[in-house]
């Protein structure tokens, strides 16, 4: 337990000090996105990695958060904090209600249903032009502000987003090592056995689905207020797949893995400017390679690889020793 806390402390410190290394600059914008994507991939990981339930519609919840915040503030002049809270609550309730029928489905069927849900949401963003501005997007979303400080620079947004992200990391770590987290993992491993010892698998899945969607909505609100402009293109199926890739690359059921996956997949395209349009090839290839050769994700796969390497080195060392004896 103490070790966990230390690990989190070190992680938080690293995040808080990171801007010093980058001294503002262009990369700061990207690091804001890393924060938002970390929230999203943690949200998806709680559902997929812990409860073992897939969603291909999480970009939709992200978008709902963003649009609820955006429309309430830009069009109706609400207080951004209030609209953010309301967006989270609404999305949480919607996900909770829809969770009951949708999580009755398993495996492929659940994947298809969530995919369909995400696409319906995406179509609504595009078609309700009066409300959302349609495909051309919604602009004029105000920045968040507190005590006269307006979060209008990359550096300020970095801290804003990462405070939320770190709180989410902490919440998720706590959850993972609690009776609820264990029950979720139990449902993942054997739903029938979990139910037999009294875990209400159905309710639990719906609850975690709602929490996951709420996290996405929060990330969406933050995205809207930091970008001040949103358009449906950011919330389509491709982004749901990108989130899935982050979770799978980092490691299913690993909170820090989600951060790693989010960071890699957000930073990678920045370094591969030339490959800009072809990011879907990279996502597709990565997804396939990871599932085939490193199903535990990087957080488990790399230490494993390292151990294997050490072992094979150890073996060759032994062999050569044996050789010496012979000689």
């Amino acid at each position, binding site marked *: 337990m103490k070790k966990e806390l230390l690990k989190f402390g070190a992680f938080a410190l690293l995040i808080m000090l990171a801007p010093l290394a980058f001294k503002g600059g262009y990369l700061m914008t990207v690091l804001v996105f890393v924060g938002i994507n970390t929230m999203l991939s943690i949200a998806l990981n709680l559902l997929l990695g812990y409860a073992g339930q897939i969603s291909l519609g999480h970009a939709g919840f992200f978008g709902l958060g963003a649009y609820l915040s955006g429309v309430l503030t830009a069009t109706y002049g609400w207080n951004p904090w209030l609209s953010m809270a309301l967006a989270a609550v609404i999305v949480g309730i919607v996900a909770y209600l829809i969770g009951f029928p949708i999580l009755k489905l398993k495996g*492929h069927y659940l994947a*298809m249903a969530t995919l369909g849900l995400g696409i319906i949401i995406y179509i609504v963003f595009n*078609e309700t032009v009066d409300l959302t501005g349609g495909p051309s997007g919604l602009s004029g979303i105000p920045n968040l502000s507190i005590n006269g400080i307006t979060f209008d620079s990359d550096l300020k947004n970095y801290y804003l987003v990462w405070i939320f992200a770190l709180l989410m990391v902490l919440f998720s770590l706590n959850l993972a090592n609690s009776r609820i987290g264990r029950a979720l993992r139990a449902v993942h491993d054997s739903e029938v056995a979990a139910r037999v010892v009294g875990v209400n698998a159905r309710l639990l899945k719906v609850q975690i689905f709602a929490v996951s969607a709420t996290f996405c909505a929060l990330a969406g609100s933050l995205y809207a207020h930091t970008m001040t402009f949103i358009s449906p293109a950011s919330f389509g199926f491709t982004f749901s797949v990108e989130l899935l890739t982050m979770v799978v690359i980092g490691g299913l059921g690993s909170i820090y893995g989600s951060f790693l996956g989010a960071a890699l997949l957000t930073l990678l395209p920045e370094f591969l400017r030339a490959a800009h349009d072809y990011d879907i*090839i*990279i996502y597709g290839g990565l*997804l*396939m390679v990871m599932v085939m050769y490193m199903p535990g994700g990087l957080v488990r796969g790399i230490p494993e690889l390292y151990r294997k390497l050490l072992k094979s080195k150890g073996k060759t060392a032994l062999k050569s020793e044996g050789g010496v004896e012979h000689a």
Partner: protein
Amino acid sequence: MQFDQLLQYALSGLSTGAIYALIGIGFSIIYNATGIINFAQGEFVMLGGMLTLFFLELLKLPIWAAIPCAVAAATVGGILFERLAIRPLRQATPINLVIITIGGSILIRGLAMLLWGKDTHAIPPFSGDEPIAIGGATVLPQHLWILGITVIIIAINKFYFFHTISGKAMRACAYNRRAAGLVGIDVRRMVLFSFVISSAMGAVAGIIVAPLTMVAYDVGGMLGLKGFCAAIIGGMSSGISTVLGGLILGVLESLGAGLISSGYKDAIAFIILLLLLFLRPQGLFGKAESERV
């Protein structure tokens, strides 16, 4: 609302519906043989269209030669997909299969973009574009091609599944894979066959619809999902129920687009999909089966 107009919507709905039916049967065949929902199914539809274009324009083949070449090439794609993505998978849990077929799907899409660019292309209709009047409505010759070819494909399919040894073996796999294996059916071969058949059917669907809807690297996603919707309506059958599912979906979509709003046309399929999955996951025509643990 004029009767003629309704007829018009229904007729054009039927031809898109036929496409959904072909794609849906492709989903069902793989699902029945393997238990996998192949998320990459739509990409073979795209490949059908794009490859035809490739053979037509770059290799200057006549259309009657370009089409079989495109189907053959897409089928090779299906074989490669099964060999490289499905077969090597060690932990074949449903979630891993979903992830791998999605990965494969967007990889194929990306490669198509890399090869042929992002532009939308037109393929000439098979026999002119002189509208034909039926009652008060008109149809294009291509609509008739679509319906005709669909009927032929379904007939061939039926013949294969009921009158050939390999088709019967495939049906045996659908009922019980283990038992099929025990009586000496090479199940892995059947899995490969199922990918061959469904990628070929997907490619045909993509080719015959291309003159009507244009073709681009990213058309596979939506068509694939609608084909899946048709299969769900049909209760994942590889026969007539899924054909009906496709036709129902096509007509509903066309009516919805005409009567309500064309912008929500795509949403209709997904709303139907969700409602069916929630209320009648066994399909519109199927009987409820008690699930065994």
